[in-house]
């Protein structure tokens, strides 16, 4: 940490200070120094850019660009701020993509939504937003959403015009002479989900993949700004329905940090249980659809059957199975009136999983045909993890020891017995195995947390009917916070900014792992065959909800 501080202090900084246990927060005075700072940070090991998050301070006529830079293996992170001018002509800054490839799509996103031009970006273009928002920069505070909505028909026409232009361009540039063509793999393809991969193929061989995203862009980051602090959880949880409680934990932690409140131990353990149940529910679908990409639906069906029992757990607690809205700033939303009955439901779900585990091992995990296709296919090395910032299960499948639950313990993870789960090869098969191993780990964590809650209640330290929520102030002080959780698909980072006496967030940046996982698809799939696309795509466990937000 000291070396990083030394490096930062060489430059003209407004302040350099410690933040949490693993972060250094710094503000750069002159934006022209940025590239030099990044270069010297790279020399001390900070090689990865987690995300780029601009904040629009309209009153002060500036846009503050936040860079979240991480040293993945030594757990030393830098939060770097730079001010740029808000006027569209002057709103530009050097691109760090040539130095840190992991920043690529994050910079494009900032450009499309805030209009920050990144000089020297290899391919600066509008991205994520549909063509009716081009040049309007919807996340700026002065963007008029209502006026925009009034031209609905024209907006739709401009989207379809863009599509036809693209189609004609493809047909003309490629022609009909050779065996080359462009396949639209999505957005209505049986295995794609709402994403379009432009696949340039030569016969059966894939030459290049160009991802076109934004089909489920709901502007969640902007939606949050129109709700109050508690109401925001329903926007936050819709980032992806598969693992539902963890994004809310992430958001609530940021709010609690700004308010300066500490939640009760009971609420912390409840967050662990809910978060892990959400992780299992998500992993079961991920593992099932991994086989679904090879035309075998049996595993998915079995997993959906098991998943119902874990959804029962969420339903018993919150009344909802998918969008639970069960965690809010200050703790968890509902009291636990009959904790024994709830624990029985959890036990039932765990028993259900363990009863079919032997069959799953024999039929699916050891399946020779699956191995022949997935083993050694689509390998990521530790270098790739650092360069493109692959997170969560994908990184751990390559042997990287990364897990926010251990690196920067939140909720009650610090008090539980938890270890890194890793695989070694980093191929597609390992990305299935890691998911399967993590389900086992989550079950273990749930058992530990249940035991702690039981002990706490018996000794009188915890009161499940009263301890669930602490009083949060209705109006927040000015401040900002960064909160991270280990989501089912990897690290989720939220950057929350509030103004004084505000009732709703001023800016919330949600950084989700699928962006980077989609970004590497070109590198992953180029040179493989058409049959490998669904397999490798499925092995990245991408969810379009958190890709577009």
């Amino acid at each position: 940490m000291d070396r990083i501080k030394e490096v930062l202090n060489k430059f003209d900084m407004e302040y350099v200070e410690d933040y949490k246990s693993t972060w250094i927060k710094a503000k750069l005075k002159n934006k022209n120094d940025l590239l030099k700072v990044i270069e010297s940070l790279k020399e001390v090991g900070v090689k990865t850019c987690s995300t780029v998050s601009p904040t629009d301070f309209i009153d002060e006529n500036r846009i503050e660009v936040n860079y979240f830079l991480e040293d993945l293996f030594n757990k030393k992170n830098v939060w770097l701020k730079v001010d740029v001018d808000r006027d569209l002509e002057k709103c530009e800054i050097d691109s760090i993509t040539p130095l840190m490839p992991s920043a690529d799509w994050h910079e494009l996103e900032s450009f499309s939504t805030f209009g920050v031009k990144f000089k020297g970006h290899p391919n600066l273009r509008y991205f994520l937003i549909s063509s009716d928002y081009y040049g309007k920069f919807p996340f700026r505070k002065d963007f008029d959403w209502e006026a925009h909505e009034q031209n609905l028909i024209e907006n739709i026409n401009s989207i379809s015009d863009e599509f036809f232009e693209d189609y004609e361009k493809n047909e003309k540039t490629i022609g009909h002479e050779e065996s080359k063509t462009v396949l639209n793999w999505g957005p209505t393809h049986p295995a794609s989900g709402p994403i379009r991969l432009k696949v340039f193929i030569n016969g059966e061989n894939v030459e290049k993949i160009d991802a076109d995203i934004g089909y489920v862009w709901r502007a969640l980051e902007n939606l949050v700004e129109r709700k109050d602090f508690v109401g925001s959880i329903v926007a936050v949880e819709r980032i992806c329905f598969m693992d539902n409680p963890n994004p809310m934990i992430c958001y609530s932690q940021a709010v609690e940090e700004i308010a300066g409140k500490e939640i009760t131990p009971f609420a912390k353990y409840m967050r662990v249980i809910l978060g892990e149940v959400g992780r299992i529910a998500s992993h079961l679908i991920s593992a099932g659809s991994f086989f679904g990409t090879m035309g075998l639906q049996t595993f998915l069906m079995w997993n959906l059957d098991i998943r119902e029992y874990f959804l029962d757990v969420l339903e018993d607690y919150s009344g909802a199975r998918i969008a639970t809205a069960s965690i809010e700033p200050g703790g968890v939303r509902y009291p636990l009136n009959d904790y024994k009955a709830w624990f029985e439901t959890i036990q039932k779900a765990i028993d259900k999983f363990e009863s079919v585990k032997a069959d799953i091992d024999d039929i699916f995990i050891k399946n020779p045909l699956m191995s022949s296709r997935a083993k050694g296919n689509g390998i990521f090395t530790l270098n790739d993890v650092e360069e493109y910032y692959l997170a969560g299960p994908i990184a751990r499948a390559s042997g990287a020891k990364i897990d926010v639950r251990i690196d920067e313990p939140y909720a009650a993870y610090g008090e539980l017995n938890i270890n890194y789960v890793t695989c070694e090869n980093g191929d597609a098969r390992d990305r299935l195995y890691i998911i399967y191993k993590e389900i086992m780990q989550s079950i273990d964590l749930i058992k530990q947390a249940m035991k702690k809650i039981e002990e706490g209640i018996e000794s009188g330290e915890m009161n499940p009917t009263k301890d669930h929520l602490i009083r949060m102030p209705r109006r927040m002080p000015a401040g900002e916070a960064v909160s991270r959780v280990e989501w089912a698909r990897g690290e989720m980072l939220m950057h929350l900014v509030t103004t004084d006496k505000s009732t709703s967030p001023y800016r919330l940046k949600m950084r989700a792992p699928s962006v980077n996982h989609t970004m590497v698809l070109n590198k992953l799939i180029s040179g493989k065959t058409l049959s490998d696309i669904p397999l490798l795509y499925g092995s990245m466990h991408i969810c379009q909800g958190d890709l577009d937000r």
Partner: protein
Amino acid sequence: MSIGAALFYIIVFPGLLFLLGWTFFVFYFSRKTLAYVHKRVGPHFNGPAGSLQTFWDILKLLTKESITPKSADPYLFNIIPIIVPLIAALPVILIPWTPLINNGHGILDTNYGVLGLVVLIGVEPFLLFLTGFGSNNKYSFLGGMRILAQMISMEAPFFLSALSPALLFGTMNLYDIMFSNTWLTTLILLPGAIIFIIAMLGILEQPPFNVPDAEQEIVYGFYTEYAGTNYVLLKFAEFTEILVVSAAAVTLFFGGYRGIFFDSFWWLFFKIVLIAILVVAIRASNPRLRLDQMLKFTWSWLTPLAILNLVWITFAKLYIVGV
């Protein structure tokens, strides 16, 4: 053959109605069996245990609009779905279905039965390639190319293993082959039967060889642009082909309609259903192979094994069965 008998053969058994009934049955049967393995219920509401579901499904498809895409070749696109089921249904005249028809022979009792079966089954994929070609859709075309690649490589082991009973018994007449079969010869033919069934999975595009209509890769292969009646006709052809190929397997290797205590159509049917269960079980537990893996498997394993099998049959004919 009287006109009445000919009409009966064409319309009732083993012609149109029988094939339609089979299509309904096998569609329902595979759905229900697969649902059982998936821990689902499967068809449930229409008819007893959902048995009428397929009937209504096909009725629904018949009432749907048959769409011909603007870019497709309208003649090729619409004629092939009529030719395909006809070609697929032709081999039924060669197979001895039941002791009650034609004294237990096939309707067309010829000394070249095996050859006829093999040729008529082999023509089918080229027609399906034409559907993909005529659709003028990238996915359909890729599916068509894949089906050609798969058929060219799968037909070699398929034909070679189909020859093994003909070689062993010295005849190509299906009736003679069926009645020459004993428990001993069934054992001798077993390796050939296994190769035949594996190649059959490839010919019928069943998992793990469902490369040509790999849903996750090329949508629905050559089926992609088809809807309504044309789709029903193509599906009807597919199920007819399943029937013909598995009936051929039973006739060639497992004694056709001959059974314990009595000879009947139901023995043949029972054996076909056993093969169908095997196919569904493989389908429910195995992912799809890649195209290049499939090619490698057929050319470097299956075809050499099929040739070795012929050597084994010759050996058995000389030294075990005796000429």
